[in-house]
């Protein structure tokens, strides 16, 4: 688990998760997670289905209690407090709007429960309804609203309480692409306006990468890495993160002396890395950072970071060409700029691939998590 290094401390974290484990009978939904979310941060939790994102969020909300470990919100221990005694609010995946109440009553619900008088609560609710661009719809029932409108009501209903932390569980999952992109911008704006931390669960990595200050990647209940989009993409902490974030080629290798690694087929490559000699590692190479050319055209400085292979597939994608290059038994995806048809390689061509020494990234292979890679 790597804590992001260039994250400057901004005072007390809004949420602190300390060694939290959650078990449902024999299922370990969340496995010994340590995590601190800064105040005012847009924080995303990313991971495949069933990795424990929702469970983590529900524990922060108080809808689930940790089996082990401690939970703090702005320094206060909240581990066993019921949800109504925590300064957080949730935007539920299904919105969970009260079907028997109109929009205004939905939005003012939290204030009313907090003892705000009816008039005052209605006024604040109307303000928020206006803010999420639903002015005039206060008398509608949720069933009379579109999905996007319901989403906005859910947001207003949570934000009206001025929570210290807003939890969002795949809030955009049910929206179509266009509305989704619109809401992404809107969410980001609201977050900056309210200045509170948003903890945002998603399994759409593009959404996570574009919206968040920091992202936590989870798999099988464990927290694998926390960092900015750039850190996760360029310096993944392990094989799973490298594979999960974006597209990549992973080459199994063993660390050798002198900044070298040895591939399964015996090829020695230059790849400086901090791992001890003999460690099993994987080298991550993004398809777009690999150059491709004729075998004899490898530039001289790149000899130690090159491989030879045979074109297996070639797909024209308009702005680029995606080659599948067979290097012994492994397949490398290589993305190259579009060139005229007669200059393209065709299946069967012998080629060489090479890359800049700064564009590879060696990750430890000690977490053999099965993931199917995206490209074939």
């Amino acid at each position: 688990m790597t804590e992001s290094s260039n994250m400057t401390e901004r005072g007390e974290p809004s949420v602190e998760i300390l060694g939290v484990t959650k078990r449902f009978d024999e299922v370990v939904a969340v496995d010994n997670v340590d995590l601190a979310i800064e105040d005012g941060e847009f924080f995303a939790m990313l991971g495949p289905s069933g990795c424990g994102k929702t469970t983590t969020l529900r524990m922060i909300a108080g809808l689930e209690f940790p089996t082990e470990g401690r939970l703090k919100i702005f320094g206060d221990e909240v581990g066993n407090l019921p949800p109504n005694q925590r300064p957080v609010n949730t935007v539920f995946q299904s919105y969970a709007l009260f079907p028997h109440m109109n929009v205004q009553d939905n939005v003012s619900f939290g204030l009313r429960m907090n003892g705000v008088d009816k008039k005052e609560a209605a006024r604040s609710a109307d303000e928020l309804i206006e803010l999420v661009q639903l002015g005039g719809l206060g008398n509608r029932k949720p069933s009379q609203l579109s999905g996007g409108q319901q989403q906005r009501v859910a947001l207003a209903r949570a934000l009206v309480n001025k929570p210290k932390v807003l939890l969002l569980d795949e809030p955009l999952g049910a929206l179509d692409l266009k509305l989704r992109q619109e809401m992404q911008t809107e969410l980001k704006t609201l977050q900056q306006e309210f200045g509170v931390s948003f903890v945002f669960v998603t399994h759409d990595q593009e959404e996570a990468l574009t919206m968040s200050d920091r992202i936590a990647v989870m798999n099988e209940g464990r927290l694998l890495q926390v960092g900015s989009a750039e850190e996760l993409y360029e310096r993944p902490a392990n094989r799973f993160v490298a594979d999960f974030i974006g597209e990549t080629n992973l080459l199994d290798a063993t660390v050798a002396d002198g900044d070298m690694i040895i591939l399964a087929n015996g090829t020695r490559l230059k790849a400086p890395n901090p791992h001890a000699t003999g460690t099993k590692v994987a080298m991550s190479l993004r398809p777009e950072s690999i150059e491709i050319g004729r075998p004899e055209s490898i530039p001289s400085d790149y000899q130690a970071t090159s491989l030879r292979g045979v074109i297996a597939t070639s797909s024209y994608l308009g702005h680029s060409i995606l080659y599948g290059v067979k290097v012994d038994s492994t397949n490398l995806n290589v993305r190259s700029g579009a060139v005229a048809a007669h200059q393209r390689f065709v299946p069967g061509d012998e080629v060489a691939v090479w890359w800049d020494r700064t564009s590879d990234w060696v990750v430890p292979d000690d977490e053999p998590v099965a993931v199917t890679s995206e490209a074939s």
Partner: protein
Amino acid sequence: MTAPKLAPDAAVRKAESRRGVFTAMPAAIYLLIFFCTPLLIIVAYSFGTRTATGSTRLSGWNFDSYERIIDDLVLGIVWRSFWLAGLTTILCLVVGYPFAYYLATRPARIRNILLVLVMIPFWTNGLIRIFAIRFLLGSDGPVSQASSSLGFGEFRILFTPTAVIIGMLYSYLTFMVLPLYVAIERLDWRLVEAARDLYANGGKAFRKVTWPLTRSGVIAGSILVFIPSFGSYVVPEILGGAKTLLLGSYIARQFGQARNWPFGAALSVVLIVAMLIAVVVNQRSAASELTGSSS
């Protein structure tokens, strides 16, 4: 004979609706003969006249029997039946709601076992069960014996309204529990969680979310309990004794000993109409609840 040409899907739909008619046919015929006809006969009789010999003359329809209902004795019986039925309904709700809630929140496997247990009493004859209660509550029954051996004296409860209520609670509780169970089981618990998340404590979340969203079950259960309680005959006859004369027994008496069929019929018609009005009003208010037709 050539049938008019229909668009394929219209033809299919027509065939389906025809099949629908056929499948409903046995029940429709049965109900027509054994439900509608007697009902019509009752209505007709209610406008008839009792002759000196106790038979009914149907010629010369009149409202005499209906006028006879406006009478202190009769209204007293109606009132007593009404509040006994109301009390039974409320008690069924008070006992049944927590129980249905418990049932509906168990894991599926346990839930099914418990549901079967709830139904077990129905496997025996209702009359026998009421007689069992009579034995239980009798002055030489086990409850009374236990009470007197503990020094609390004899237990006199049989042939009182209390005994009738105990009997009716026992007889009709299931009618309350099952619709409540269905409503609670269908409840979207995420809404309750949302309420808790929005600062409602357990009690408030129940009042603001669980209760209003399970109201359909409360209404259905209440109707199912109130209606048979209001006109109930067997339980008051066996447990109530002569002092607790209720509407069901009173109507039965008109058709029996009193041999005043028009009056019995008129009472029955009023009872049926009152129930129908209550049911319709309830359904209306329940239906407008979720559609947002209210202000």
